């Protein structure tokens, strides 16, 4: 049961153009599955609805910059201390990207609901005082707590059709181990119908950390494994390399205009293979690290 594919094959076989709900893993400037995201751009894979972790970054902005995202379900897209997300901001302000406004609690618990077949998730009292649910009546509504009679907020389950995720390592059967922080990546894997993993390296099964409960993704949830050392660049890969802030600043500066964004895409994504990209940015030079 060898699930190891090239990045091109993995996207071609497992992410249809116009896929329904596509989740991208990683959070803020860490563990973004950029090799998979770049390949989505190369293959012009449109996404009907993109779901980020509580905090999306380049994983979302690059797909938006490429014009591939129709709707986005998120509670944050930005670059933290480096600034706002240029393509996301431009697309929303221009009215060409529909936002399904979410908050962190809903994304986190909604993914659990998706993983668990829970029909919906009832959210803590008080969250309804934020305007979020009023802006997103598709994902949220009010429900009466049957135990107290109080009106509380309910969220619909989040069950991605596809999750694009990064892990430190996996075996050929798709058993994967996460390094560092996990964010909601494991939840996305549990909730998604199809999981495409990029990893720093493919390893034999017996090298996976077995007893660390909760640090792994079992292979029966995974459809494809892509060996992509350096593949989170320019974001960080926990256990392997830090964020490349200089490259991110270059992206932010270019993507500040629509034309600039296109030239970034041409220079760093569409015009180059993943191997060439990594060589050009010298990513993965320090790849190694322990699981």
């Amino acid at each position, binding site marked *: 049961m060898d699930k190891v594919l090239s990045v091109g094959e993995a996207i071609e076989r497992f992410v249809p153009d116009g896929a329904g709900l596509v989740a991208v893993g990683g959070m803020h400037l*860490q563990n973004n599955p950029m090799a998979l995201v770049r390949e989505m751009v190369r293959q012009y894979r449109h996404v009907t609805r993109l779901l980020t972790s509580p*905090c999306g970054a380049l994983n979302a902005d690059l797909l938006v910059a490429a014009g591939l995202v129709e709707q986005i379900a998120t*509670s944050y897209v930005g670059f*933290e201390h480096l600034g706002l997300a240029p393509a996301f901001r431009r697309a929303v302000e221009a009215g060409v990207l529909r936002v399904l406004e979410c908050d962190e609690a809903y994304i*986190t618990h909604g993914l659990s609901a998706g993983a668990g077949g829970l029909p919906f998730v009832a959210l803590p009292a008080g969250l309804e005082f*934020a*305007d979020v649910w009023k802006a997103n009546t598709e994902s949220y509504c009010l429900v009466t707590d049957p135990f107290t009679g109080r009106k509380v907020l309910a969220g619909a389950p989040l069950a991605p059709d596809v999750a694009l995720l990064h892990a430190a390592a996996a075996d050929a059967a798709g058993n994967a181990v996460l390094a560092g922080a996990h*964010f*909601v990546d494991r939840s996305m894997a549990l909730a998604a119908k199809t999981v495409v993993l990029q990893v720093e390296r493919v390893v034999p099964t017996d090298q996976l950390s077995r007893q660390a409960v909760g640090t792994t993704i079992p292979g029966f949830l995974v459809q494809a494994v892509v060996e992509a050392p350096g593949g989170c660049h320019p974001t960080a890969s926990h256990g392997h390399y830090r964020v490349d802030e200089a490259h991110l600043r270059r992206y932010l500066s270019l993507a500040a205009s629509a034309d600039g964004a296109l030239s970034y895409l041409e220079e760093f994504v569409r015009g180059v293979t993943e191997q060439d990209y990594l060589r050009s940015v010298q990513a993965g030079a320090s790849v190694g690290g322990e699981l």
Partner: protein
Amino acid sequence: MNGGAATPPSGWATGELMAVELARQLRNDDVAVMGTASAIPQVACGLARATHSPDLWFVAGGACGVNPHLAPTVASCCDEELLRSDTVLPLGDVVLLEGRGDVFTVFFAGGLQIDAYGNCNLVAVGDWARPALRGPGTVGLPFLSRVGRVLIYSLSHNPRTFVERVDFLGGPGFLDGPGSWVEAGLPGGGPAAVVTPLCTMDFDQATLRMRLRSVHPGVDVAQVVEATGFELVMPDQVTQTAAPTSEELAVVRRLDSSGVLKGR
């Protein structure tokens, strides 16, 4: 973003002063949580632990290190460095505990807009559906309704940030004031203090509107009034924020050895 910031009149950066001033709001029995780009509150908590509140706990949301060692402080709240800490929680557990409401006693917040009642907005300026400025999103700010004390900090202090009413309510403060606040019966205690590059503010008990408490060294009251887009409650006496002591600054610089708070 630093448009309204005072030029530091002596040997500390604005971010350092803000961390020191936030630390002074913390207590030994606090359990604090913070999110995106939270180097300033992280250093504030580290400083509090190193000085007056050794038993304070803090969780650097994102990576979710508990009492991260800040050696050094980092800019991204999801940076792997934050896992160098006493323990680490999965993000999902921190989100659960934020909802539990009786665990975290302090929540650090901020926004593109902060209004007179301490409501925060990190989502959109203007009409949500077609915003003049689309912000990143609200992340965990709706939880502000459920924690003990909300400590707001902002690197911008100008009339675009400090507005009479947020365009989008992402993080509930005192809502529309006393009546609405009481009626809502929120489990949290509401906003407790606001620290900016210019001053420290709190909230008037009667009106629940933001009130000037102290101006930072080198800043005068008129500057604050001009930089604020709503009418601030004025106390009988506006004090001057105590300058960071040399002990405080030494701790801050030990924790932030790479100078993130200096904007390096």
